[in-house]
């Protein structure tokens, strides 16, 4: 599998799910693709269909309405798939944690492999996160 994982590490296709975020994390994710950060040089590509994805980027505290859909999307993704939670929202709930409508334990919705905290995390932080993922895949 080592050889394969190395290929995988060099070609992470990313699908982006927003589970009730404030949008900023999503914008910063898109920022990654644009000229200043350009993660295509790492082989990362944003795809439109879950079937093509290797990495799921989730943002936001999940609210009760969107959580089942996120779960469904995760189930529809072809394995192996990695879930990376972007922002403080999925990890701690930030300012929203007192709301009624959010899922308290986001791990119960989908298994999250990695958290990249920050509100929003700087693109550099996200790249570092991705780099760590690649490092791991490369062994």
């Amino acid at each position, binding site marked *: 599998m080592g050889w394969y994982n190395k290929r995988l590490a060099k070609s992470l296709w990313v699908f982006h799910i927003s589970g009730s975020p404030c949008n900023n994390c*999503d914008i910063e994710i898109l*920022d990654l693709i644009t000229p200043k950060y350009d993660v295509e040089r790492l082989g990362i590509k944003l795809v439109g269909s879950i079937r093509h994805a290797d990495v799921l980027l989730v943002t936001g505290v999940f609210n009760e309405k969107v959580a089942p859909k996120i779960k469904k999307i995760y189930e529809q993704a072809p394995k192996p798939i990695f879930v990376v939670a972007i922002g403080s929202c999925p990890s701690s709930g930030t*300012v929203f944690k007192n709301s009624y409508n959010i899922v308290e334990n986001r791990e119960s919705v989908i298994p999250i492999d990695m958290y990249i905290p920050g509100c929003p995390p*700087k693109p550099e932080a996200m790249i570092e996160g991705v780099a760590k993922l690649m490092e791991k895949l490369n062994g």
Partner: protein
Amino acid sequence: MKTKSNLKNIVNKNQIPLGPFHPLLEEAEYFNITVDGETVVDIDMDTGWMHRGHEFISEQKTFTQSIYLVERICGICSTSHPLACVHAVEDVDNIEIPLRGRYIRTLVGELERIHSHLLWVGLAGHFIGYDTVWMWAWKYREPVLQMFEIISGNRNHYGMLRVGGVGKDVDPASVPELNKILDTLDKKMDMIAKIANDDPVLRSRLVNVGILSKKDAIDFCAVGPTSRASGVRGDIRKDEPTDAYDLVDFNEIITKNGDVYDKFVVRVLETLESIKICRQCLNKLKIIDGPILNNVKEISAGEGIGRYEAPRGEVFHYVRTDGTNRPIRHKVRAPSYNNIPTFQASCKGIPIADALITLAGVDPCYCCTERAIRVTDKNNKKNNIDLLKLSRDKTSNIRGNF
């Protein structure tokens, strides 16, 4: 306006679900588009995917905390909501703001408009498959974020505002640098304006697409560029000049047609105006000295309305207080909340490809459309997971698993 029987007819037609997760929508949102072939017959929106209960949370927080909360309604115009919020609180007691504070507020607000409009131009490009425009627009947006970093220390979520003024001062030493960045931006914007005017392919794609008539704009109470593109006057910065808007000179951009192209033009021209305003503010900040914050002691009981012309239109906040430091009712109404229903008027009878760009045309941000709502929260045992532990655990998990 649809009647019930009308809805029944629609059920038999083909429907296309758009969302909740669709590459067109950065946020989760769901449209049920009824089509005939590829022509949109009806559009029905199901919201609530992003609903986090801001109005509910806000009632548990102090005004100062609320500002940070409403900042996180949405990240794109994360100054507009706090600004409208502080305006509302200030409106209760007619609180005066020091002059320097007013200029800084205006500066931040306008910079945000630039960044937001550029973002939209880019995304609109992306949606119509013109990735080059996307990349370029976002490249030119980076300097704005850089300016924000200089001013507030963060690329997004600036946390600048307080009731009674602003929380952070602009370092006078950084003003020349900011001015320099603005200069480069100016040239780039001119270029984008030119593209907007000249590119025939772009025009063929956008002109006469998704027309929102003036009447519909008024009927649906649309706000901001969406209504201004349809020829409806209305700019909060002119109507109710708070902050420094009565002290700076700028134009209100209005076009007549109401199609996506006009919305595009309005946004591009507005960006130019914003750059003008930012310049004026920066120049004033060089001369004007003084406090930036009126240290408010107390908010008396009463009601207040605050609004601000966000990049997408009027943000409206209403607070009702009882004399404590938190609101008893905090109503938030984002511009998209009024703009999105206009799809019903502008999307009918056009092909899906057009409908999609029309959806994008009002620059909707669902995050703040769905802010409100709370629920009786009896069991307050939130599972506040230790962020650090989690992130360490998980990262080491990944390490271990492979």
